[in-house]
């Protein structure tokens, strides 16, 4: 079974989102997504200060098998990137929810994250896609 932590929010494009205490959002790809892509070999992260709209492509993760775009879940400005992935992209395979985080954004507007999915809804999406 794929790991879907209860404390996170999710997108239909298989990103996870953690709301930090300071209101910023940490973003990565889910365990299910890394399992589908397989061994990661390259990550292209946004630059600090880049601003993205919701659902805009802002990063790329590449496994041996395929390249996959990462979409910004909420309009925001990039305030941190996981530079360690440049040398060790396999961290995404090892632990997609911790060492495998991709970047952090500061939302540009007040947001109640209604557009993001709950763990239950995401689990349903994963289930429906595997049939």
């Amino acid at each position: 079974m794929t790991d879907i932590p209860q404390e996170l929010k999710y997108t239909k494009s298989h990103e996870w989102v953690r709301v930090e205490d300071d209101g910023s959002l940490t973003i990565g790809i889910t365990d299910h997504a890394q399992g589908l892509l397989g061994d990661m070999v390259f990550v292209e992260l946004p630059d600090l200060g880049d601003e993205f709209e919701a659902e805009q492509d802002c990063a790329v993760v590449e496994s041996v098998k395929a390249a996959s775009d990462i979409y910004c879940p909420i309009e925001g400005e990039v305030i941190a990137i996981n530079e360690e992935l440049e040398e060790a992209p396999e961290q995404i395979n090892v632990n997609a929810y911790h060492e495998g985080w991709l970047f952090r954004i500061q939302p540009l507007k007040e947001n109640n994250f209604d557009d993001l999915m709950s763990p239950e809804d995401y689990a349903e999406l994963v289930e429906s896609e595997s049939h």
Partner: protein
Amino acid sequence: MTLKETPIIKAHQDMGAKLVDFGGWNMPIHYGSQIDEHHQVRKDAGMFDVCHMTIVDLRGCEVNDYLAKLLANDVAKIIGKPGKALYSCMLNDEGGVIDDLITYAMQDAWVRVIVNSSTRKKDLAWMRSQIGNMAVELNERDDLAMIAVQGPNARELAAKALGDDIDGAQALKPFNALLINADSDKERFVARTGYTGEDGYEIVCANDQAEQMWRQLAAAGVHPCGLGARDTLRLEAGMNLYGNDMDETQSPLESGLSWTVDFSNDKRRFIGRSALEKQKEQGINYKFVGLILKGKGVLRAHQQVLIENNALTGELTSGTFSPTMQQAIGFARVPTDAEDTCLVAIRKKQLEAKIVKLPFVRNGKVLVD
């Protein structure tokens, strides 16, 4: 649509395979990590379920004449030499590649051909349509299964695992094959061939014995490997993949396959010959090369290749991240005068790549700088 399954499916599930739809077949893509599986084959021994490939037996007193016409390589090289193998393309009248295949001389008036799975239907239709009045009988052997055992220790471990079942195979020379226990239920066809750039065997047996053979090999220490590793291994080894690196719209002469097209016998008018001769007369515009990306990133099929001071552009036909070299590598069709370096368009960037001669890796060793 229900996916087709090979006779080894149960063992794949038991061994933790991640199964995917591969051209209508439910096949293992990996058993955990395709990079680990890749290294197993380069350093030790791995095995691949290749039962989805199509085995065809051609028999009859005119089989040699038939293949002389059907194949771009000259079957005369292996005729009368049971056990010899020959790699060739099968071309259409325009000189495009219908498929690539391996031909094995079995006995007098009996040749075995192994073609790709994705092209099975059109290959069989084409091969049947070319028989005409010739005394050739075509028989698809879907009663047979095939396992590829590859790696520096593959032959030793296969001998340990399969013992008398493949007796005599140890003495095979590269690109030779042997029929063992013919016409018995223990019949094995063992070829010292493969698609990884490593030593090893491709072993054919009856469908109902394939799962047991797979388990025996695993018990002897041969690692199950998925089709993911098969692709990175063949790319490092500089081996073409049908549908990526050549197809019916591409000439073998611009796909790195000139060495398989044999023009030497003027009288042998194989299918596609006239078209290729015309191409040669008019001039070949592209050559087929290896690319190594200098910086970080991954090369992929269909990325555009730009050459300085050249209006003609090239294109990647295959690309991946090489686990052995820890760099992105690929094959590309580039203008014939391209040398040393080029630029590859990857998303919004143009990244520098080195142009090299294939292959990248053979028998565990990196052959390019």
